[in-house]
């Protein structure tokens, strides 16, 4: 059964079509990677799935319901969690409070019920030390980790991750991969946009390639990586 399915979804900004007739399914519990050049429309696709943007055409179904016109907040409640590519922390709140907002509102729980959940998430993502620090003071890497943590705190069934591995050292990258693997094993479906391919490929079962808003390939990572087209368009560097 697929938890998410997009059917002929399109979105344009003025004359620029950023999402062009996109159709795909994500089976429950799967991890899907999305790659594509800068400006291909990857983040826009996320915004359409989360409801931060509404599509011009097409339908989006989540968890068996048509959510095409649902506002972002409703979709979050029904289980769509996301991270932003450009981190969007609540800067005046502490890291912990950032998570409390997500956990209380995203799951509909009371504040006392979520303390443990939030602390647990922070432990997993390694941000616990910074729990009481205002989010505005975090470095870029910490902000990205906060994005991941906050998305996890909403208790998602579907987790959308937008470029969270850039700029990590080897060790950090490994532990990030472990964290994401862990989330997967709990049964959470994951869609991950990432330029750091080795990290992506070690997690996802399927890869979707986006170019100019169009899905140009979707399938087994190894197959996709083999295809000449993808290498040319995406990597840019001749190998």
């Amino acid at each position, binding site marked *: 059964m697929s938890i998410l399915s997009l059917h002929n979804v399109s979105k344009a900004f003025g004359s620029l079509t950023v999402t062009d007739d996109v159709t795909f399914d994500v089976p429950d519990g799967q991890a899907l990677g999305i790659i594509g050049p800068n400006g291909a429309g990857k983040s826009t696709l996320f915004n359409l799935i*989360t*409801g*931060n943007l509404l599509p011009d055409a097409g339908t989006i179904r989540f968890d068996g319901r048509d959510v095409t016109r649902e*506002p*972002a*907040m409703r979709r*979050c*409640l029904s289980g769509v*969690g*996301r991270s*932003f590519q450009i981190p*969007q*922390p*609540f*800067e*005046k*709140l*502490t890291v*912990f*409070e*950032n998570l*409390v*907002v*997500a956990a*209380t*509102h*995203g*799951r*509909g729980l*009371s*504040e006392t019920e979520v*303390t*443990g959940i*939030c*602390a*647990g998430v*922070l*432990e997993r993502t390694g941000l*616990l030390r910074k*729990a*009481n*620090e205002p989010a505005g003071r975090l470095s870029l890497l910490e902000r990205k980790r906060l994005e991941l943590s*906050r*998305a996890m*705190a*909403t208790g998602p069934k579907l987790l959308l991750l937008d470029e969270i591995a850039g700029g990590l050292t080897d060790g950090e990258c490994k532990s990030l991969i472990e964290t994401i693997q862990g989330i997967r094993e709990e049964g959470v479906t994951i869609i991950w946009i990432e330029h750091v391919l080795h990290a992506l490929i070690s997690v996802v079962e399927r890869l979707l390639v986006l170019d100019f808003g169009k899905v140009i390939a979707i399938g087994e990572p190894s197959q996709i990586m083999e295809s000449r087209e993808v290498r040319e368009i995406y990597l840019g560097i001749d190998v």
Partner: protein
Amino acid sequence: MAAVYSVRTRTAASTFAFVVALVLVLALFAAPAFVSRGLIQDLFFILTMLTLAQFWNLLAGYGGLVSVGQQAFVGLGAYALYGAVILGGVDPVVSILLAGIAALILAVPTAFFAFRLQGAYFAIGTWVIAEVARLSVAQWRSVGGGTGTSLPRDALKEMILVEWIGDLFDTRASAARDILAYWLALVLAVLTIAGIYWLLRTKRGLALAAVRDNTEAAKSVGVDAGRMKWLVFLTSAFGTGLAGGLIYLQKARISPDAAFSVVDWTAYVIFIVVIGGIGTIEGPILGVIVFFILQNMLADYGSWYLMVLGLIGIVVMLFAPRGLWGLISEKTGLQLFPVRRRLVGGSLKGREG
């Protein structure tokens, strides 16, 4: 193996502040026994302006809704009270509740309209709605139309509790009425501050802060930003209506131009909040005291007073946009009404954020 965590909000300063506040409130309750009537009236003025300022601050400082139309709720609340007393024969003290309810009722269509507008448009839209309310009330002949009217003296005389207070303090009825109004203002102000503080400490308060920081992100973590706006707007309207009713109960005379005055009930209130420090509970408290002192020192200088007031507003906004409390808390880190939730326990034991 799971570590045990808990959340702490209190600080040493806030505990101290709480005790001081408690003593202060008790002292204020007892004040009529040992201070002059003039002081009671001054305190009434301070407390009602404080209430208005807290609600405007809730609206603009926490909810991001910069309204220039709060006089609509003051005026409508006050007129509802006069209508109930004059036409319905309801006891004035009971009518204060009706004032709040009337303001709440007006707030619903106002919000439907004004929420379609953003920023400056919102501000001007609310102002126009307040004008419409003023002009409409000015057509209400049975409470005097554009002329205005006074509260019937009988109703004032027979007001509940007045006699009891008169006996208690052995004063004339007019002084007893002042004391009653003062106590009501004190209750209203304390409940307002406590209520707003409580709201900020709940998950809704946290969501309010999140929406203010980043609306898109807040929506993405399940915060219903639209409902927060409604909550804040309706609450402010209700509280502002109560304050309006109380203010005009004490004045005993009303006219549309006075009750819907944008200068008295919105501009001065904005001035108080901004001087004190927007987006904090402490700010309006400080602001109202400064405003009161300025008014007392300078009011006899007529137009010079207003000029100075205007200049102070300009200077504070330009050079200390976070107000006096902003300056103080920046220097000292002081917070009397802390809302910051600190995670303690587990491996964080003993560490302070």
